[in-house]
Each structure stands twice: as structure tokens, then as C-alpha cells.
């Protein structure tokens, strides 16, 4: 399996605060990687560094073999980035926001027309496509951002808390979409608070605590690591993070 995401010694300092420390990780093609950890563990900081939204203090990020530091524009062209809070341009309509994204990612006109309608229909936004984003609910904005992120068929989708603000139908829709995209070879890196989502969706899980990656692997591998049998992810998570605190 080709490595599409490579994080090498990734470190981020905010003054004296070590938000992320020496993070080393690879994620393969078509893999869904879940990133879980307690509040303030460094999940969002890692995600933002991967999306090129903030620069690391040290270390390297390779997206599809392209260095985010050396060729940020090329690396970003391969990413669909979905932040945790859906801040958008409120005075654009949903359709105009998609066109804005398409222009930024050089999506051709014909392809845009075909894909935008498909995406809006998929996310139940077609009827509201010509309304200003300021009148959308939180969940609708989140769906629009997810739609915009997949518009240019990215090699990698980086998602921070994908299910926040979505209703149960929206959650199911997004889960199915992510599975389908992974099946087609898209790599997904998602951080989540919801252990249920991670357990249900991810091929591999990484647990980050106090800026360091303390465990990675499939659910079974994590069970072995935590020396527990038949335990769910919540119990595993608590055990691993507690062990880390006590050590």
C-alpha cells in the first residue's frame, strides 16, 4: 500500500507549550485513519498542520509524496480540508461557494456543473443552493464544507470532527460517503471525539495524548497493546490514556 500521508518528527510549539511532539505517522492509500485523544491533546493542531493552515515548528509533512513546506500549493491541491467549525463566506450562496472552491482548485466548467449538482443533491442542499449561506443552519454549513472538500476529487481528505452539527441522517450519509471514497482509493484522516465513529469507520486508529502519539493500530492491535479482551474503544481509550498519565 502506497503511503499518501507521511508525518515525520512533527512538532508544534506555542511559546513554551508543546502542542504536538515528535509525531511520526504514515497513512496508506484508501485508508481511513482515525485520530482520537482527550481535549487539548493536539488533534486539531496536527490536522491544521496537515492542511497547511499552520506551519509546524519542526518536522515534515508529505502529502502524496509532496512536501507541504517546500511546495504548499501543490500539496494543498491534493487535499480536501474540512475544519471543525464551519466558518464560510456568509454573503455567497451555496452554489457560489462551490464555484469559488472549484475555481481555486482549477476544476473545469463542465466537470463543475456535473459534480456540483451531484454533491448538492447528495447533501440535500439542491433546493437551497441559491440562498445565502448566512441563512443556513450549522449542519447545512457543515454539509456544504464537506461537499466543497470533495469537489476536486482530492487524494486526501483531512477532517476535524466530521460529525459535529450533523443530524443522525447526516452522520450516516457522511459515513457512507467516506467509506465509498476510501473504496475508490481516497485517503481519509479524521480526528474525532466520537469513539463510536472511530470504531465504526476507521481502518486504523491513532491515540494522541499531550501532543504525543501513544498508540496506533487497528482495534484488535490496540486491545493487545492495552492487554484487554473484548473491550470497546471507550474502555481502551481510557485505559491507554490513564496508563500514559500514570507512567
Amino acid at each position: 500500500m502506497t503511503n499518501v500521508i507521511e508525518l515525520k518528527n512533527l512538532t508544534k510549539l506555542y511559546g513554551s507549550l508543546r502542542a504536538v511532539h515528535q509525531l511520526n505517522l504514515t497513512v496508506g492509500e484508501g485508508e481511513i485513519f482515525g485520530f482520537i485523544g482527550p481535549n487539548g491533546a493536539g488533534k486539531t493542531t496536527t490536522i491544521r498542520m496537515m492542511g497547511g493552515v499552520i506551519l509546524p515548528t519542526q518536522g515534515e509533512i508529505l502529502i502524496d509524496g509532496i512536501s507541504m513546506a517546500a511546495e504548499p500549493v501543490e500539496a494543498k491541491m491534493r487535499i480536501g480540508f474540512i475544519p471543525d467549525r464551519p466558518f464560510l463566506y456568509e454573503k455567497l450562496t451555496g452554489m457560489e461557494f462551490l464555484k469559488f472552491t472549484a475555481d481555486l482548485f482549477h476544476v473545469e466548467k463542465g466537470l463543475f456543473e456535473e459534480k456540483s449538482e451531484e454533491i448538492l443533491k447528495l447533501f440535500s442542499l439542491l433546493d437551497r443552493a441559491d440562498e445565502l449561506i448566512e441563512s443556513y443552519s450549522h449542519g447545512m454549513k457543515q454539509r456544504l464544507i464537506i461537499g466543497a472538500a470533495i469537489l476536486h476529487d482530492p487524494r486526501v481528505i483531512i477532517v476535524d470532527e466530521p460529525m459535529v452539527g450533523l443530524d443522525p441522517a447526516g452522520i450516516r450519509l457522511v459515513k457512507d460517503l467516506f467509506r465509498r471514497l476510501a473504496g475508490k482509493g481516497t485517503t481519509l484522516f479524521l480526528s474525532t471525539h466520537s469513539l463510536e465513529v472511530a470504531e465504526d469507520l476507521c481502518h486504523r486508529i491513532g491515540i494522541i495524548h499531550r501532543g504525543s502519539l501513544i498508540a496506533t493500530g487497528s482495534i484488535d492491535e490496540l486491545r493487545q497493546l492495552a492487554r484487554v479482551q473484548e473491550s470497546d474503544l471507550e474502555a481502551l481509550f481510557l485505559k491507554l490514556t490513564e496508563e500514559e498519565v500514570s507512567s
Partner: protein
Amino acid sequence: MRDVLTLLRPRFLAMKNRMASGQQRDRMLARLCYGLVGFVFWAGLFALFYRVLKYFKNVEVFGDLLAFKLLAMALIAFFSLLMFSGILTALSKFYLSRDLPLVHSLPVPSEKIFLARWLETSVDSSWMVIAYSLPLFLAYGVVYKAGVLFYTTLFLNILPFCLIATTFSILLVLAFAPILPAGRMRSLSFVLGVLIFLLLLISFRLMRPEKFVNPESFATLLVYFKDMEMANEPCLPTTWFFDSIRAALSGAVGKTFFHTALSWSFCGSLIYLATWVSGPLYLKGLSRTQMVQGKRPGFSVLRRLPWLGPLQWLPGPVRAFALKDIKTFLRDQTQWPQIFLLAALIVLYLYNFSVLPLEKAPAQIVYLQNLFSFLNMGLAAFVLTAVSARFVFPAISIEGGAFWIVKSAPLSAGSYLRIKFFIYFVPLFLLSELLITATNVLLRVTPFMMTLSVTTMLFLSPGVVALALCLGTLYPDFSSENPAQTVTSLGGLIYMTLCSGFIASVIALEAGPVYTIFMVGLRGVSLSMAQWIWLVGSFSAAVILCVMAFAIPMRIAIRSLDEKLGG
């Protein structure tokens, strides 16, 4: 009363905490600087009114008439400003504040909430008008050698005057809120408020108040007297204030207190009425503003924006940001009043040039025409600076919470800033050229001055816009509810200072050579070799300065944005 004070407490506590935290040092410094500028302006106003009133006082027969006519006109202007400011503040305090859901969920009677908001609105909308009306009143006091009675009357009248204007504004807002379309309140009211203000401003200017000091412009002396002595409406708050001041200046104690009592009794009744009608009206209007409707772009012309067609030929990322910025700007109705205001100021600017009494001046007309044209270059550049401060300086901050889109977009900091530069440069450059050409046409200047003005603006404009973009990048405020207000930050102050210095330097470099060329032309002689060298050197220095004012800020802005993208 305790509930009202409790409702006001968060405001004072927030102010106290802000000052204690020290995080606002930059902002405090900026406020201090703006305070100083404000004080200089205040002192200038006092000096101006003092001179005018002193002049009036020395005019026999008409002197006092002129002085009181000025007072009556000023009071009407202040009342209009108070009403305008009151409408905008009341809208914000009563219907648009973020804390309204919290405040209305508290176990406090709605009239207490109304009174707390009324008090806040009155203070916020009046303080500046009071501050800038004081130089006028003080000038009257000094010129007419007024005693304690005048200052006491002033104090006793200015309060009900402001409260009446604000309460009227609040009543207007309360009456219109329940019938305005939900979700459109902010935009419609802002537009209406500014339109009223512009109407007043333009009508006041077109009245040509300067004609009152020139009796020759009236057909007969009788018409002039009639115009001056026109009685004020007895039922207007401005009349009560005017009559109180006039009586105080003439030492008529009884009359003074009678008119003051009229003001206070009306003020009290109005506040009672407002509190009473707020019961059925306020919550009804508030409920409408809280409704969220599916909103489509306002007007078909903005929805389709067919005139943006040519932008389709631009490269993808450039088109994306250009279209986004233009659409966002045009659809944000809170921006429209400022466009109207700008348009009105330009009309007045051009109108003032059209009525310049050049033919009455003792100097040669051709000399004055060209002198005004030269000074006008500086004036037009300062107008461009002010417009850039309002529109270009916040260009980065307006991305707000959506700045993550810029950061995660496949676009370099340089490309992003160059796109922003051209989006703003093109309209502002056209505006400055329009201003300078139109005023020069009105002044009927020589072809040399016309060419010089147009060329100077061509070289100045990129620097003015680049400086605004640079300082806006160095001092962004992504969390501001109204990015336009970021110009009052330290960055805005530095921008205004740097830009003024830049414009003044270019104008100064051109002043000497232009004067020489002009005088040589008037005397009919030719330039000496030394004068030629000085000319070329001076103009070259001006060009180099303009290029540097564009290139250096752009480079600094790109570096700064690169760092910001690094978090």
C-alpha cells in the same frame, strides 16, 4: 432601578477588565492618538467659531442676527445628527446585539430591559455630538462674555435636547421594527438612516449658508432681513434650546427657565410614552428580527451580476477571490450607506469647487485656478487615503473566521495579496482620476496642470492602496464583528500617518518645480539649465518614492502573510 443598573453592569465590568488585562495596549495607544487628533480638531473648531462670532459681533445692525441665525442652524444640524446616530445605535442595542437572547431570558420585566437599553443608546449616540457641539457653545459664551446663567442653561438644556432626539429615534425604530421584513432590519434601517442623513447634509449645503454673510446676494435688504428673522417653530425642541440660550445670553432669567422647563417636561413625557409603547412593540419587533428565513441575494442585478462577465476570463484563483470579494461587498447592505455617503461627499466636493468665487479674489484668476488645482491633488489623494482606510485596510480582516479557507487554499501569500491589490486598486484609481479630472475641469486649469494632476494620481494611487493592504495585513482583526472598524486600531492610525507623510512628500517634491514652471510661463522666459536639473531631479525623486511606496509595503505584506499562514 436596581435591575436597570444590574443590566448595565456587564458593560462596565467588561470595560474594567479590558483595561486591567493590558491586552488592549495597542488599542489604548491608538485611542490616545485619536484622542489627541480629536482634541486638535476640537480646538480648531473652537478657534473657527470664535473668529466667526467675533466677526459677526463687529458687524453693525446685522451682527447679532447673524450669530443667532448660525446658532439656530447649528441646533437643527445637531438635532438631525443626534436623530441619525440614535437610529443606528438603537437598532444595534435593541435588536441586533448578541447578548439579547441572554438578557431576555432573565427574570427581569421588559420595561427594565427597555430602560437599560434606552440609557445605553442615549449615552452612546450623544456623547460625540455633545463633545463637538461644545466648541460652538463655548465660543458664544466667550464672545458674548456670558456668565454662570449661560453655562448652567447650557448644561440644563443639552441633556434633554439629546434625550429627546434619542428617544424620538428609539420610538421610530420601535414603530418600524414590527413591520420591516424579518432578517432585513439591519440593512434596511441602515440604508434609510443614512439616506435621511445625506438628504439633510446635501440640502444644508445646497442652501449655501455662506450667502447669509453676503447681503449683496439678496434682491433687497428687506428680503435679507426677512430671511434672517424667520421665526423658529415654537413646538420644536431646537426652538426651546435656542430660546433658552438666547435668553441666557441676554440675562433674562425667567425666560431662560421657562424654555428650559419646556424641554425637560417634554423630555419626561416622551420617555414615559416610549416606555409605555415599548411594552406592546418591542418584543414583537424583536421576535421578527430573530426569525431566520431562507435568504436569496437581494436584487436581481446583484443576483445575476452580468457585468461581472469579463471576470470569467481571469485565471481560476484570481476569479474566485475577485468574485467572492465583489459579491460579498455588494450583498452586505451595511456597506451601502458608506457608498452613499462617499457618493454624497464626492458630490459636495465637486459642488464646492463649482461655487468657488474665484472672480472675486484679489489675485489673478489663472494663478488661483492653478494653485487650487495643485492643492487639490493633495486633497484628492487624502480622499483616496480615507477611502482606502475604510475599504482596503480591512480587506484581510474581512475574511474573518473564514480565513482558514485562504490558508488551506492552493494559493501562495503573494498571489493572494496581488489579487486583493488589484480588486481594490482598479476602482480606487478610477475614483481618484475621476475626482481630479472633474475638479480640474470645474477650475478650468491649464493643460499642464491637468496632465500633472492626472499623472501624479496615477503614481500615488498604487502606493496608497499598497500601504493600506500592508498595514491591514500587519494588523488584522479576524474576530471583529465589524471589520470596517479595524481602521480605528493602531494599524489604521499608522496607515493614516504613513500615507499622509507619503502624499505630503510627493506634493512637496512637486511644489517647487511646478511653481517655477508656472512663473516662468507667466513671465514668458525659458528655464535655465540649473532649473532643468532641479526639475528632473525633483520629479524623479517623486517617482522613486511612489515606486518604493508600492514595492516595499507589498513585500512586507507578503512576508507577514507568509508568517500568518504559519500560525
